[in-house]
């Protein structure tokens, strides 16, 4: 075991394959952590984005009292500061600052901190994505909702956001794919995700080139699979409702036609 490096085939592919076989559990444990953090952070980020985008979408009405106007202005300002700060600084810096900065108050594990940091970072991007989604919805939808007596919140939750999310779905899915790759910066706060694990393996075998080919292939596998799953969901969202699922043999549901056939 003294010269472990000498057992490893010298060529790139042979070396990578050897390293993968020997350290597969370490790689996949890292991949699992990467997926755990990126998936949960994307979902939490989406929720944050929905809330922040809704706050930014609140409109002033002439009936508002001075106090509620000030409150709305204040919330707008907070939302804008949040978005600008978290989109305008590197996630790596946010990770180091927040992890160590908040450690005095919360004793959190690196993974918890990682989920928290990626979530609020994603939230800032999601807020902009959802805002664009909301803007893509025709004003008439909002007016129709208000005209049957819905209040602003009901109109948002029941009418605007479902359509905005559907329109923004490709961009939301893209955030997930970006997160799978960007969680690699969390190695600076020693989260044991895929990059961190690869670094450990590379340190043991002392073959950075070969180890990180394995890492790259695993990342590619994760992002490619995710993209395919997201595409499938996208296709499903786009299919018009009421036209039956793929399992139905009838192309459409036209009861009026059926009735005429019976009469004839």
């Amino acid at each position, binding site marked *: 075991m003294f010269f472990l490096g000498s057992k490893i085939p010298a060529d790139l592919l042979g070396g990578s394959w050897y390293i993968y076989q020997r350290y597969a559990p370490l790689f996949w444990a890292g991949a699992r952590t990467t997926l755990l953090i990126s998936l949960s952070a994307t979902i939490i980020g989406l929720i944050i984005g929905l809330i922040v985008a809704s706050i930014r979408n609140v409109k002033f009405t002439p009936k508002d009292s001075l106090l509620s106007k000030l409150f709305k202005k204040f919330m707008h300002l907070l939302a804008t500061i949040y978005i600008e700060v978290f989109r305008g600084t590197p996630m790596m810096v946010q990770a180091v600052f927040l992890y160590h900065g908040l450690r005095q108050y919360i004793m959190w594990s690196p993974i918890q901190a990682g989920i928290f940091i990626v979530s609020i970072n994603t939230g800032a991007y999601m807020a902009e994505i959802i805002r664009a989604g909301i803007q893509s919805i025709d004003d*008439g939808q909002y007016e129709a909702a208000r005209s049957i007596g819905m209040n602003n919140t009901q109109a948002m939750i*029941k009418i605007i956001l479902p359509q905005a999310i559907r329109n923004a779905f490709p961009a939301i899915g893209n955030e997930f794919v970006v997160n799978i790759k960007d969680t690699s910066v969390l190695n600076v706060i020693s989260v044991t995700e895929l990059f961190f694990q690869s670094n450990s393996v590379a340190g043991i075998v002392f073959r950075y080139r070969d180890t990180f080919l394995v890492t790259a292939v695993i990342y590619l596998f994760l992002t490619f699979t995710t993209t395919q799953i997201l595409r499938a969901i996208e296709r499903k969202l786009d299919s018009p409702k*009421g036209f039956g699922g793929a399992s139905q043999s009838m192309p459409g549901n036209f009861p009026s036609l059926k009735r005429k056939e019976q009469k004839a």
Partner: protein
Amino acid sequence: MSLIEIKNLNKSFGSNLVLKDINLTVEEKQVVCLIGSSGSGKSTLLRCINLLETPNGGEIIVDGQNIMTADFDINKYRSHVGMIFQSFNLFSHMNAIQNCMVGQTEVLKLSKSEAKAISLKYLEKVGMLEFANQSVKSLSGGQKQRVAIARALCMEPRILLLDEPTSALDPEMVGEVLEVIKQLAKEGLTMLIVTHEMSFANDVADTVVFMDQGVVCEYGSPKEMFSNPKHLRTKEFLARILR
């Protein structure tokens, strides 16, 4: 007492005065058709009545209540005032019956089964029962507008406001929508209709109001208005449209 009383209503967009001192009363069970060239403020007047536009001055009194006071419950009021839009504005992520149900369950707080029964009743009334579970995207313009009418009726409105309900429709689909509206008029629903269909206005209206450049120029029964208009602008408008 009149159902709707509009007194000295003013509305401006920026420096552009769109409604100037509008005075209008609508009795219960009356059908009022608003006619006039585009930009005359007809749609704005309609939108002021359910407060989609906030008027700048004047009074709108519905059922003895001034709807423009600060403590007025707008959402509750709107649930009793149906609105039909030129571009239908059906909720496009829902099917026909969900469009009808969502207002009842969210605003009127009815149970799902109650809402469903009421929705089916009104979808049948507008002849759209067989399309209840169909996506609104797959419907034709006329069918969409009929679902929109059913959606408004499901809220059991006291007043129905129709903003050019047939203007976005292909000519062959105008008839089916107008038939539904005529039926509602017969049943005594109070309606304000902005329309360019003069023969329809003639058939259905109790009062025809001609608006021009933000003022009510002339109003009267359809018979007077169409056969014997008094105002010069009305004559010109009708001559152009009835050619």
